[in-house]
């Protein structure tokens, strides 16, 4: 005798029943539950009584249509889910409403399914929601679709009627790029071809719906992909910091080389707290865990701990396919909140590439997506977003959009980090003069000497000192001071984190142009964000030199040349670097100037010597 599988211990296989209103979804669901013996007789009797009160013999749909209004109006309003067992395994069955108005409820149900049964009334054929649901299944990433052509009893179990509907839906699904696992004729109310074969359709030799479902393979757990651990929270109940999150893919192992995005800081897991499994194997995908980092680090919700050599990039924009159920249409230029894994980002719709008609699948131009519509867009954020394409990591590749308090849409990412609209069509012009030509003429290369450090560390003083030295030596040098740039190029920008980043980006872009013109640019800017500095290095890697003007906070605060620290301590300056906002020290600067340990003149000399060694080619005549 073979051992029976322990059905209750295995995770239930989630399936969703979808299709147009009145095509028989809830009836099919009720019938599946009943025919597999999953319903206690007392509940069947309650449904029979409820049916009779409404002058009907037996409404199987009432098993799931629990609301009075659903029963009285004979429609499903909200999604329901219920467990049942076949002889093979246990299932979670999700019943989804068919009305267009209840689309958000349909998505609520369908999104967690691994497979779908698309129910079509044989007499009506493909209807509006048949197509929209099929389209949405595809967008939700539900790859396995079974088509159940229902109400065969109403057409006398006619084979030609079945064939005609089967041909239509096959063609529609093919346009979406979906190949159904099976198409089969059923009569849900009669129980035909649900769990047992129907004698009324001798022309159909295939398996019953139950048999088809039982044959669907389970999608494997996401252990094979690189680690993604979005940080949900950070706890400290008085016994040290614990980092809280759920492993979305891969495994968390103690000692593995990891990276924290978007800040790109390396990290190692020191311990798995309260972990009862084998620590050598680590915590697999799906587990909610608590860890410590070794050494501890500042992290926040929305950061993602990832495999060092396969980390997600921090991106400014994404291309996505979005389904929309907001009452107001989605509009070009509008701003929404994007929620993905544990992060939330403000995003602006910078392009609507097309709006897809679910009926015809024709993509058209448009500047808005109506309720129940689907479209492809570009979403751009002022903050770096840790997102990936749905294909490379579903957990980091899907999102919802909020407008105010309302969830108004959802979507999947096709490209994470695309060139912003317009830039893709710009081609940088290259002139006849190469950088080395200018360098040969001037006697030195162009350079961006990026002086970063706390307020009061001595950046500007050193920059202006070195500028004079270099000019004395016949070199072309110029200081770009962060405070000065704020009067012109960055006028209008405030001091929020996003605006600071943008200010630094502008300073960097200007510095890059100066360097390209052959000038040695000395930039004096606090620029506390490691990521911002890395971004500038990325735009001009040949010119960029990170110079860390380093002095401890106490020293800078004691100097306080502009009385800014005093004011910050009094709370007059919010988010003041070093006091109420972090300064991310350079990890591997090209040069570190210790302005606490030596005087500023000595520091300036050190920088001049560096320029002599790294930037200068020969002494001017």
């Amino acid at each position, binding site marked *: 005798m073979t051992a029976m599988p322990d059905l*209750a*211990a*295995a*995770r*239930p296989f989630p399936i969703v029943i979808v299709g147009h209103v009145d095509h028989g979804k809830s009836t099919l669901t009720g019938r599946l539950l009943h025919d597999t013996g999953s319903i*206690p*007789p*007392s*509940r069947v009797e*309650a449904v029979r*009584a*409820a049916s009779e*009160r409404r002058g009907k013999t037996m409404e199987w749909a009432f*098993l*799931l*249509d*629990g*609301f*009075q*209004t659903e029963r009285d109006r004979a429609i499903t309003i*909200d*999604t*329901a*889910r*219920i*467990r049942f067992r076949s002889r093979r395994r246990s299932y*979670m069955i999700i019943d989804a409403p068919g009305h267009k108005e209840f689309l*958000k*409820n349909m*998505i*609520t149900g369908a*999104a*967690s399914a691994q497979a779908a049964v698309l129910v079509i009334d044989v007499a009506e054929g493909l209807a509006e929601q048949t197509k929209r649901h099929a389209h949405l299944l595809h967008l939700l990433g539900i790859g396995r679709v079974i088509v159940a052509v229902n109400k065969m009893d109403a057409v006398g179990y006619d084979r030609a009627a079945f064939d005609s509907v089967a041909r239509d839906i096959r063609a529609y699904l093919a346009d979406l790029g979906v190949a159904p696992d099976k198409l089969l004729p059923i009569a849900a109310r009669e129980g035909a071809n649900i769990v047992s074969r129907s004698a009324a359709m001798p022309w159909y030799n295939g398996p019953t719906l139950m048999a088809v479902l039982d044959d669907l393979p389970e999608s494997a*757990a996401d252990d094979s992909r690189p680690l993604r651990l979005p940080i*949900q*929270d950070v*706890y400290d*109940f008085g016994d040290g910091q*614990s980092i*809280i999150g*759920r492993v979305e893919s891969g495994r968390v192992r103690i000692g593995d080389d990891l990276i924290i995005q978007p800040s790109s800081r390396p990290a190692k897991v020191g311990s798995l*707290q*309260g972990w009862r499994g084998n620590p050598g194997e680590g915590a*697999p995908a*799906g*587990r*909610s865990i*608590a860890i410590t980092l070794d050494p501890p680090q500042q992290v926040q*919700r929305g950061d993602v701990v990832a495999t060092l050599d396969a980390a997600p990039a921090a991106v400014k924009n994404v291309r996505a396919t979005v389904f929309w*159920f907001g009452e107001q249409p989605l509009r070009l230029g509008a701003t929404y909140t994007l*929620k*993905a894994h544990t992060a939330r980002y403000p995003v602006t719709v910078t392009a609507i590439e097309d709006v897809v008609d679910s009926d015809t699948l024709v993509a058209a131009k448009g500047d808005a997506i109506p309720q129940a519509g689907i479209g492809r867009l570009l979403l751009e954020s002022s903050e770096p977003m840790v997102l990936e394409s749905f294909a490379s990591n579903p957990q980091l590749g*899907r*999102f*919802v959009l*909020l407008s*105010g*308090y309302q*969830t108004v849409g*959802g979507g999947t990412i096709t490209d994470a980090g695309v060139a912003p609209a317009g830039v893709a069509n710009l081609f940088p012009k290259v002139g006849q003069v190469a950088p080395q030509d200018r360098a040969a003429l001037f006697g030195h290369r162009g350079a961006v000497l990026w002086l970063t450090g706390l307020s009061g560390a001595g950046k500007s003083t050193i920059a202006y000192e070195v500028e004079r030295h270099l000019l004395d030596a016949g070199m072309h040098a110029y200081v770009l001071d962060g405070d000065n740039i704020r009067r012109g190029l960055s006028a209008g920008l405030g001091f929020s984190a996003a605006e600071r980043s943008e200010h630094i980006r502008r300073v960097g872009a200007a510095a890059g142009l100066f360097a390209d013109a052959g000038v040695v640019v000395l930039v004096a800017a606090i620029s506390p964000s490691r990521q911002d500095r890395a971004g500038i290095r990325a735009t001009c890697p040949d010119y960029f030199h990170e110079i860390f003007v380093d002095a401890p906070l106490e020293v800078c605060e004691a100097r306080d040349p502009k009385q800014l620290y005093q004011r910050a301590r009094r709370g007059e300056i919010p988010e003041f670097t070093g006091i109420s906002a972090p300064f991310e020290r350079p990890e591997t600067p090209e040069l570190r100037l210790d302005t606490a340990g030596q005087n500023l003149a000595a520091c300036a000399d050190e920088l001049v010597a560096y320029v002599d060694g790294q930037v200068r080619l020969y002494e001017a005549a």
Partner: protein
Amino acid sequence: MSSLDDLESQSIYILREAYRHVGKLAMLWSVGKDSGVLMALARKAFLGRVPFPVVHIDTSYKLPEMIAFRDAKAREWGLDLVVGRNEAALAAGMNHTMGRVTCCAALKSEGLSQTLAQYGFTGVIAGIRRDEEATRAKERVFSPRGADARWHYEDQPPEFWDLFNTDFPEGTSLRIHPLLDWTEIDVWRYVRREEIPVVDLYFAKQGRRYRSLGCAPCTGTVLSTATTIDEIIAELETTSISERAGRAQDQEAEDAFERLRADGYL
């Protein structure tokens, strides 16, 4: 990986989302098996403690064993226990003979909303499950109640991909349901695996046991010989009686439970 591991991790994720986002959070503790599981999950989620108050709505008619168990465990686990009662209704003599549904509405639903208001709780964690009853099957994990405390079940917010709705206007009272996807058998399997203490009333004496616990006048026993958790699980594998069959208030009318829930019952 077993189904229980999945359910456990999912519930812990939900509890942590609630703790992160809800301003003034509490957890309901009916002292039944489901809230016992919830308590164990919370202690795991928050590394050995329950970092918010635990609310018990006392109708004064609860089975006495439940109250004794509640007080013993509250001490043992160091819980911040809040006991809420609708004192006005009790003083006016409310009891089940005035109508079971009327009595539930007054002592449980109204008792709960008074207690939430009194302590200013903006969100409560409750251990309801979809498999208990057809309207619970349609619940959301993060389920808002308006200022009137009513459940607007015909227009629930969308909720998918575990990207739960945690943004609500001022005045919204939130119900959080970490056990929604569990079944009765899952609960018992978890009780067994985690050795969670449960009230003795669940085990058969003289051929009968309680399957669901509530107030003494309205909660009946079922025929059973199950005296251990293993036997309870074996019984549930084959039973054809629904879990709330012993709860008299549900049987008053077809929509009795829906109306109770719309008005704020769990």
